[in-house]
């Protein structure tokens, strides 16, 4: 039995309705309890800001694509090297750090749970190997279904049950957590070097549209009673005028779940562009947020970009190729048979570029114009918009109008006319930030009852104590203190153990991986369906028996069972 008592913590726990109370947190064997014995180890939080461990609900840190980003970037690897030190292994890389690098840096920022944004089922084993090698965060994997042949066939047949059965079998087989659709239908078209331009275009050969795929997958998701909703990267990412596609997509979404959203729309900044070309691109954040403000069934995340050199990586193959033709830098592409695609290119977001400045402003506008912080979560689509180490700066910008104004003054002159950021007075408070960086994520991912995102009795003791005194820091003025404060916790506690202190990693750690297991009725299970099996064996290049990820790949797996079809 190990016990820990965190005293004098200034706690903000939105899920528990706690906002800035000074209190003690008792921990026994990794969970939060009512009280501990007087033998417990004591940490004095000294009235510093204490939050549930941070949760990133959309980041790219593990798997084939991320590792290929590293593989092709020795120039980035040398940008962030640290030596082996105590319990810390060697790290390399700035925007695509090694697994240790990612984990340590997230840990130093108080993050304890991460959702990998895109995992191709065929290559899931790779993602799980890296999950296991990630010491300090619990992991979940979005599973790509955007170009899944079996799914598209079932959608064409308008067979929702079968769609659900395919999804359920796949998630179980490859130990995925949630449904991810990246440019639905578009990644299959990219198999021929083509793309789709609206949600009503037909996918070549399969005769289904993105709208049909999205609608069917939402229904299948709810039929399976999956903890998370469908997680969508809309069509037409990064194209001027794409906001209309995004609005059209939002209109498809019914409100089907009382506990959480029905659609999670990710990195919406990249989907909120007006104009027709790169020359007259402008912000449509107002239109997007108007739609979201009227639809509680939708949660989005920002997809904030920051000015720096970074790497874009997404399953959206055609988008990456278009971007490559603009930038003429290196380009990798990796299409996955019967499932999805992916692309990677390095980019530099520069204040000299009007387009980049407008993008930067749109991300902030989305957050500031969304009334409920529970509906617009903070992330950069790491590393696409910026590496996650930039989150503290994003927090600073959201909390301080002055910081925004100072930044705006250094931007390309076309920014102001094409966005409304400068006119926005809103300054977020500590509670808003707590929602946007952990509580909102826990609710959106459906992991509150797994003990994530809050500090109630029975919750997992994942806690971040920041060197910030909310009673003495005025974030609107002293935004630099805010940025610094969020860069390094005093303590990051993972399942009751201090894993990082003042940015130093002090234990090796051992994480857990959450995956969803939906119980599917025997009569519709696809692994009993001879036609499904026949097509699998004929068109995949691995045997169906070698496809599932064995439990040995999840040494600390946490299965989340759902009562599907009930």
């Amino acid at each position, binding site marked *: 039995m190990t016990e820990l008592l965190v005293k004098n913590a200034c706690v903000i726990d939105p899920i528990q309705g706690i906002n800035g109370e000074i209190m003690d947190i008792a921990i026994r064997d990794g969970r939060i309890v009512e009280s501990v014995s007087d033998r417990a180890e004591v940490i004095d939080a000294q009235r510093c800001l204490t939050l549930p461990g941070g949760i990133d609900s959309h980041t790219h840190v593990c798997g084939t694509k991320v590792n290929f980003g590293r593989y*092709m*970037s*020795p*120039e*980035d690897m*040398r940008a962030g090297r640290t030596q082996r030190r105590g319990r810390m292994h060697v790290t390399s890389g700035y925007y695509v750090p090694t697994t240790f690098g990612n984990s340590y840096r997230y840990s130093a920022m108080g993050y304890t749970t991460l959702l990998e944004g895109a995992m191709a089922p065929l290559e899931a084993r790779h993602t799980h190997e890296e999950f296991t090698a990630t010491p300090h965060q619990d992991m979940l994997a979005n599973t790509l279904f955007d170009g899944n042949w079996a799914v598209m066939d079932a959608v064409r047949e308008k067979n929702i049950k079968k769609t659900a059965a395919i999804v359920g079998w796949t998630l179980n087989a490859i130990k995925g957590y949630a449904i991810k659709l990246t440019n639905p239908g578009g990644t299959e078209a990219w198999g021929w070097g083509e793309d789709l331009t609206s949600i009503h275009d037909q996918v070549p050969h399969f005769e289904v549209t993105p709208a049909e795929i999205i609608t069917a997958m939402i229904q299948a998701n709810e039929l399976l009673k999956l903890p998370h909703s469908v997680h969508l990267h809309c069509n037409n990412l990064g194209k001027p005028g794409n906001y209309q596609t995004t609005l059209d997509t939002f209109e498809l979404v019914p409100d089907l779940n009382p506990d959480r959203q029905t659609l999670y729309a990710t990195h919406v900044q990249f989907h909120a562009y007006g104009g027709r070309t790169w020359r007259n691109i402008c912000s449509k954040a107002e239109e997007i947020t108007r739609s979201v403000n009227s639809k509680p069934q939708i949660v989005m995340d920002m997809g904030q970009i920051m000015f720096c050199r970074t790497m874009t990586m997404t399953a959206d193959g055609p988008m990456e190729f278009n971007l490559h033709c603009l930038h003429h*830098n290196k380009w990798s592409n990796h299409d996955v048979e019967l499932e999805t695609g992916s692309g990677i290119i390095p980019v530099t977001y520069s204040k000299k570029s009007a387009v980049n400045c407008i993008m930067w402003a749109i991300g902030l506008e989305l957050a500031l114009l969304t009334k409920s912080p529970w509906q617009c979560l903070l992330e950069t689509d790491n590393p696409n918009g910026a590496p996650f180490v930039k989150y503290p700066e994003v927090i600073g910008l959201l909390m301080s109008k002055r910081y925004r104004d100072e930044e705006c003054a250094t931007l390309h002159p076309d920014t102001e006319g094409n966005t409304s950021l400068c006119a926005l007075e809103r300054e977020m408070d500590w509670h808003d930030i707590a929602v946007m960086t952990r509580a909102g994520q826990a609710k959106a991912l459906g992991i509150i009852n797994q003990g994530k995102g809050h500090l109630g009795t029975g919750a997992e003791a994942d806690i971040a104590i920041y060197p910030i005194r909310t009673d003495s820091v005025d974030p609107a003025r002293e935004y630099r203190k805010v940025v610094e404060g969020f860069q390094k916790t005093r303590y990051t506690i993972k399942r009751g153990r201090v894993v990082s202190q003042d940015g130093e990693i002090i234990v090796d750690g051992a994480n857990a991986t959450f995956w969803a297991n939906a119980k599917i009725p025997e009569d519709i299970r696809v692994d009993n369906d001879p036609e499904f099996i026949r097509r699998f064996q004929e068109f995949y290049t691995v045997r169906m028996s070698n496809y599932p990820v064995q439990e040995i790949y999840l040494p600390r797996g946490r299965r989340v069972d759902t009562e599907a079809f009930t």
Partner: protein
Amino acid sequence: MRVILESKVRKKPTIPIEAESIIPRNFLKGTDLMVYEGNKERTLSELFWIFVEGTAVSPENIEVVLKGDASRIKRVGEYMDTGSILITGDIGMHCGNFMSGGTIEILGNADAWLGREMRGGMILCRGNAGHYCATGYRGEKKGMQGGKVEVLGNAGDFCAEYLAGGEVHVHGSTGDFPGVEMRGGRLTIGRDATRPCANMKDGTCVVLGNVHEMIPTFEKIDRRVLPEWKIIADVYKGDVANRGKGTLMVKIPGAA
């Protein structure tokens, strides 16, 4: 001030030494510097006899002289910004990495990556230079960006790869692929070159000797006199395969 470093005889003479601390500026505060021999950290005095002559108040007045066998010593002059280094024999890899000012003179030969990612200053190598003379780092878009590298002997393969600025002058011949991926700057080759300027985007290269295996995707646009060299040269644009706008000038054999 002159700092003379004479390498001591080592038990394992083939283990490489990494000595990026050997730049003039560092000797302003003494000779208490650290270097690496393989995976072991050593003091400068463990590996060198150190003689200091005179004093200096600013680094530009410091000359470092490296004597003895320096052929396994890497990264001498890395990030050097002022002062001078004289190497009396051969020097190991990565001499003058990221150099931005000052001068390095090598009386013998230089191993690979001489002047890698150089920004300014001057390197004179009186012997031959190894492969990747005046180039960049793996995966990086730009190689050398400024300054001058002059080699009186020959240079190895991939000389001036990704050259983006500054001047590289090899008086002898180069190996395979000089000026490959060039995007700026000026490369002059005194004698022969094999497959020069493949895939170049921009910049200028002059070959005063023979070209072996000319890349087939260069477009001959002119024949002109180059007064600087007192020769007549064919002028090519390319690399067409790479939408390049670079200039490659090759002396016409026999014409003076």
